């Protein structure tokens, strides 16, 4: 990172030199605006780029910040104490940011029930409403005329002119960049990056996805509000025109143009899109057309943004391929004993439209046992797992976890009770590394909150160190320790399955639901998986195993339940169940070759 540090110092020095090497205040003024837009774009990048939640209403949060500080500071400026101490400015900035964050909560709670294009629609509507209020509530906002003579920023009695304010805003901007970095690479950041790829999988490790999204939204709104307050004090004059729909589009464009989900992308985007029209002054009335065409062309040729292009062009050495050892060799990993739970399922029925997927299914899964659930494709096995893990609510019937009635109304609620699952149709987090998957699985046991992570407190450091060690141990247990740093999207199918299992184990389940864990594994890997399952049983975990590889089922399970057409057709010890006529006819086929 030497070269990186050097580059950063040069960059900062260059930015700091701008007011000195340029004459007049024009470029300094542009610099301030670029920093402010950069701060807002960083906030939007966290929400839209990293977490994948698109907002087209960020100008409204900027407006919240700007108007709050404008109104407040103007009122306080008449009081001599504030006029001499300059505290009203900083109070205004703080209040403006807070109000923006609070309105972020209000919007997020309502808007985040929906996803994708619908979320974008709700944020557009929000932006529109705020804009309209600014226009119509003349008594407070001044209507279309806006608010003028907003106090200039000052520290103590020292007024910050454009040249001095530049350095203050630059410091804020660099802090925003640093915060983005801290946030994104913290365990919290891993979680928020993961929801972009699979909300269901995030919920499956016990994380309340809705709450997480609200928090991210609020952080993003706070960045925008903060940018808005700086904007108000820089401009001294604000009006609804500054916060139109187009401004919101501008910020999203800046993120996409520069490179969504990259550290510097939003900043580069904001700088280019801001400075471009200034440089196009010569084109005069064709300015907007040239601007539009340039954006269109760039987005077409740079689908991953400017930073994506730089990444693409940078020469890289070809990584040597790490040969993949075949069997789990690091079985020595220490696993803490687990208090397994029993699960009693009584008369569960569930229908999809006219299809009765499960019909009065009852089974008892004993504490610390491996219970296999087998049956033909379409028999209802996955549906049952979905019901146990809280994805669906059963139409009829009841479940008891350790004797107490189980009301699993959501995946994360089930996971927080210790019922953790894997997915037959894999749900991994795109290009996040294998190690990150496992660390995300540990969220439920994390005691460090966002504040700890941002300041990198002692607790945060210790916790991350333990989490990493535990994660490596879990990967070792599953025989994929050497893949820790590989993006999941580059893994072979069978290895992706093992990552799912590792992530589920990271939650420290009391009952582990494995949905076809051996699909895509070769015999040797299945043998290793069998050893892992026995080991988990050994530490006391209860396991429900849905699987087609009969050899594995026979090897590890204490009890087998056979489902066919949504009903139980056999139940008992594996050796007995396999000999039953019904099971052979419905599932195994006439000869036992299939094992």
């Amino acid at each position, binding site marked *: 990172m030497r070269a990186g540090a050097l580059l950063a110092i040069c960059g900062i020095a260059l930015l700091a030199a701008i007011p000195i090497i340029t004459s007049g205040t024009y470029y300094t003024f542009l610099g301030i605006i670029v920093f402010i837009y950069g701060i807002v774009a960083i906030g939007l990048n966290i929400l839209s780029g990293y977490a994948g939640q698109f907002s087209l209403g960020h100008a409204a949060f900027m407006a919240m910040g700007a108007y709050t500080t404008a109104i407040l500071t103007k009122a306080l400026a008449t009081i001599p104490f504030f006029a001499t101490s300059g505290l009203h400015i900083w109070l205004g900035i703080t209040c403006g940011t807070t109000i923006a964050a609070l309105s972020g909560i209000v919007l997020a709670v309502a808007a985040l029930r929906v996803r994708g294009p619908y979320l974008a629609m709700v944020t557009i509507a929000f932006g529109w409403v705020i804009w309209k209020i600014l226009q119509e509530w003349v008594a407070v906002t001044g209507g279309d005329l806006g608010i003028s003579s907003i106090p200039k920023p000052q520290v103590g009695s020292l007024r910050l002119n454009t040249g001095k304010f530049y350095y203050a805003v630059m410091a804020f901007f660099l802090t925003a960049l640093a915060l983005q970095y801290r946030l994104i690479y913290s365990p919290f950041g891993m979680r928020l990056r993961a929801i972009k790829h699979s909300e269901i999988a995030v919920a499956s490790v016990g994380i309340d996805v809705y709450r997480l999204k609200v928090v991210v939204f609020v952080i993003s709104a706070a960045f925008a509000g903060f940018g808005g307050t700086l904007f108000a004090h820089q401009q001294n004059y604000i009006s609804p025109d500054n916060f139109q729909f187009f401004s919101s589009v501008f910020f999203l464009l800046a993120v996409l143009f520069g490179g969504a989900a990259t550290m510097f992308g939003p900043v580069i985007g904001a700088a280019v899109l801001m400075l471009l029209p200034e440089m196009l002054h010569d084109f005069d009335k064709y300015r907007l057309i040239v601007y539009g065409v340039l954006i269109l062309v760039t987005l077409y040729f740079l689908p991953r943004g400017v930073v994506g292009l730089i990444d693409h062009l940078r020469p890289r050495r070809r990584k040597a391929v790490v040969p993949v050892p075949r069997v789990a060799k690091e079985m020595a990993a220490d696993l803490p004993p687990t208090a397994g739970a029993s699960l009693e399922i009584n008369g569960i029925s569930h229908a999809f439209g006219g299809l009765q997927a499960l019909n009065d299914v009852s089974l008892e899964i004993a504490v610390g046992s491996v219970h296999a659930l087998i049956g033909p494709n*379409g028999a209802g096995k996955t549906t049952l797992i979905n019901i146990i893990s809280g994805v669906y609510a059963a139409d009829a019937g009841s479940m008891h976890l350790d004797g107490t009635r189980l009301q699993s109304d959501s995946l994360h609620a089930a996971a927080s009770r210790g019922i953790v699952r894997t997915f037959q149709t894999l749900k991994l987090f795109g290009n996040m590394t294998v190690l990150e998957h496992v660390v995300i699985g540990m969220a439920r046991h994390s005691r460090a909150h966002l504040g700890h992570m941002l300041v990198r407190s002692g607790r945060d450091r210790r916790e991350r160190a333990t989490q990493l060690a535990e994660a490596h141990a879990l990967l070792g247990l599953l025989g994929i320790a050497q893949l820790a740093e590989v993006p999941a999207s580059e893994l072979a199918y069978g290895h992706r399955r093992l990552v799912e299992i590792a992530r589920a184990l990271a939650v420290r389940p009391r009952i582990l639901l494995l949905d076809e864990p051996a699909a895509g594994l070769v015999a040797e890997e299945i043998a290793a998986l069998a050893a892992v399952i026995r080991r988990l049983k050994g530490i006391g975990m209860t396991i429900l195993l849905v699987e087609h590889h009969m050899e594995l089922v026979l090897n590890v399970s204490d009890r087998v339940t056979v489902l066919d057409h949504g009903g139980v057709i056999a139940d008992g010890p594996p050796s007995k169940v396999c000999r039953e006529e019904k099971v052979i006819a419905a599932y195994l086929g006439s000869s036992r070759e299939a094992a």
Partner: protein
Amino acid sequence: MKLLEVKNLHVGYGELEVVHGISFSVSRGEIVTVLGTNGAGKTTTLRSIAGLIPPGSGSVTLGSARIDGCAAHDIAARGLALVPEGRQLFPEHTVLENLQLGAYQALRAGRRAEFKTSLAEIFELFPRVHERLDQPAGVLSGGEQQMVAIARALVGRPQILLLDEPSLGLAPIVLRTIFDTFTALKARGLTILIVEQMAWLGLKISDYAHVLENGRIMLSGPPKDLAANPRVMQAYLGGAT
């Protein structure tokens, strides 16, 4: 006569090379199986032959024409069909619609009669597909979906069929039906290349087999010879358990 010939094929993803120069061929009317562990490069090899990943270097010849570097739809039009890992059907579309998409080239050229004939042949092979024709592919059971995936590849009347782990996630009773089909297809003159982890299934029906490890072919031979090899026994046939 060689129908598909792969020579010194290198394939990778960005900076990571996965397949390091493998060579093998499939003769007309033959079933060839490639075995290998996870991460060995099997899927990468198939996808590269089918034109979904551009090969880094080496050549792939189909019949007499070089197809490496051709676009995937071009290669499909030349008579190479891939049944991808995990089936990849269009779940909201009916079975018939899925099959129509498979016959895209023929239907676009207006050869409806040819599509009808292909369908009739497929129904003979998979009566279940006929029964389910109007249902959305997503509601079918795993075995039925695999049949539809194979049928979708067959309606294009390929010269050679590439299958990526046809056994994945299937109940034992369905496995046999699916693998019996391959023998039936071979009897009709189709050439088949299978990538499979359930080694005993693949070995039983194939004429020749290769073992791929860490992106290189480590062993090749008739299935009988491979099945007798202790290393293959242990790793793929479950000799160790």
